[in-house]
């Protein structure tokens, strides 16, 4: 196994004295499925966005595939971003365009400025978009406008857009937080399958412990901007959950987790 991503002492200060992230240190192996859990405001989104520099970290190193992302110039950053797909809680699609156009947006990073502006895509790119949509069960909706789709369908478009980048890694920021349980399961299954069949490394923010337990190879627990747990799902004890979430909410989550497990 080789290390794909390594964070070294990454910190982020939005204002002078409050650290949204302090000295984050961990690494992820190629092909791993890792969940980041923690209460809301813990810094999960900040953590994910510091990796592809949607947010600039204040200090530390982010080494992806051997290069320190934080040292890259504009062009290098764009090239690296094409290798990292991102999936969002609110899907972040261009709702006035069709499904297939949104999927093809994932290719923009590979194009010249003009080709991208005019939306000129090659035959292969279109074929790949169609293949991905078929795989995700959206072939019926390919030419519909995105604003006509349900939440679960929109998230699948988001996944297709990330996959068409041919990424080495997927960053998923609460991909199921706006979905009902049924759609949530479909989306998590898709992400898990993709990770396994395309050998894509996944880093997924979640706030449901039970989901994290079910799908992850490894879980990272974050509280107040610090990593307080980093281990296998089987190592996540009740005490640990309390530590991640603070005792009261921890109880609730743990009970819910038990019920779901049983």
């Amino acid at each position, binding site marked *: 196994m080789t290390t794909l991503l390594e964070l070294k002492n990454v910190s982020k200060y939005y204002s002078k004295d409050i650290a949204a992230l302090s000295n984050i240190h961990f690494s992820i192996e190629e092909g791993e499925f890792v969940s980041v859990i923690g209460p809301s405001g813990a810094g999960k989104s900040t953590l994910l966005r510091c990796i592809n520099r949607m947010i600039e970290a204040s200090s530390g190193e982010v080494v992806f595939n051997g290069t320190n992302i934080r040292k890259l110039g504009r062009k290098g950053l764009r090239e690296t971003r094409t290798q990292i797909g991102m999936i969002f809680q609110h899907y972040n699609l261009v709702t006035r365009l069709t499904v297939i156009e949104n999927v093809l947006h994932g290719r923009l990073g590979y194009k010249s400025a003009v080709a991208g502006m005019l939306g000129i895509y090659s035959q292969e790119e279109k074929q790949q978009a169609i293949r991905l949509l078929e795989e995700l069960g959206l072939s019926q909706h*390919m030419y519909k406008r995105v604003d006509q789709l349900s939440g679960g369908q929109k998230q699948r478009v988001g996944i297709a857009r990330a996959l068409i980048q041919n990424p080495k890694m997927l960053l998923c920021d609460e991909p199921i937080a706006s979905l009902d349980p049924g759609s949530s399961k479909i989306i998590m299954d898709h992400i898990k399958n993709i990770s396994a069949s395309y050998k894509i490394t996944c880093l997924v923010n979640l706030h449901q412990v039970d989901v994290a337990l079910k799908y992850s190879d490894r879980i990272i627990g974050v509280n107040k901007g610090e990593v307080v747990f980093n281990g296998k799902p089987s190592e996540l004890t009740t005490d640990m959950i309390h530590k991640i979430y603070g005792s009261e909410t921890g109880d609730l989550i743990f009970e819910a987790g038990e019920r779901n497990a049983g």
Partner: protein
Amino acid sequence: MQVDIFLKKKLHNLSFILLLGTAVLGAIILTEYDVAKGFSSVPAAIQWALSNFYPDSESMEKFPDIFEKLVETVLISVAATTSGAALALLFAIAGSSTTQFNRFLGQVSRTIATVFRNIDMAVWSMILLFSFGQSAFTGYFALFFGSFGFLTRAFIESIDEVGDSSVEALRATGAGYFSIIFQSVIPSSISQMISWILFMIETNIRSATLIGILTGTGIGFAFSMYYKSLDYNAASLVVLVIVAAIFIIEWVSNYVRRVIL
């Protein structure tokens, strides 16, 4: 087959561009617009303005005169807007589908407002010039008619936005027509209406300049007088004074809007 949509979009865009291009070409021919001159005259105008169009010390002596004319123009704009707004309120209440007391009268008041709105103030001033001459009446009535037409439409929109709900609630309590209007409709749409009135005053000062040029009154007359006598320094001072007035009014309006909306 699957790529049809891209082809369709491309054709759609292409035909749009083609149509637009043809229309532009047609308009250029029709209006005898000289494209080359259009391009060359912008830098020429800027160069001219930089070397001629600024106030000098001599023109500053005319400032009291210009200021007096400005005050006159601002007052005419305010007076026309305010009185136009009062009439517009009546017509808006009669014309809004929420508050109209009679369908036919509602249609009549909307039609009257449409006619007044669509006869431009410049047209009004030329009509009024026949009977009122170069007096303050001409500018006042031209602005009054235009403001009345525009504000009626704006007020109807404000009333409709407040919507049936508040009217219905009061009607359910058995309130009469006038108490509904004064207790519900006007209080809940007044902020929006004031915002429109302030906007109208600002617009009217600009329109008053135009009307002044046509009718020989106010700040517009001052500008055209200096302009025609090639006293560009004084003319530029007029422009700056108007800009300052508009900025101040905009600033006051923004303050009022921030507090009331």
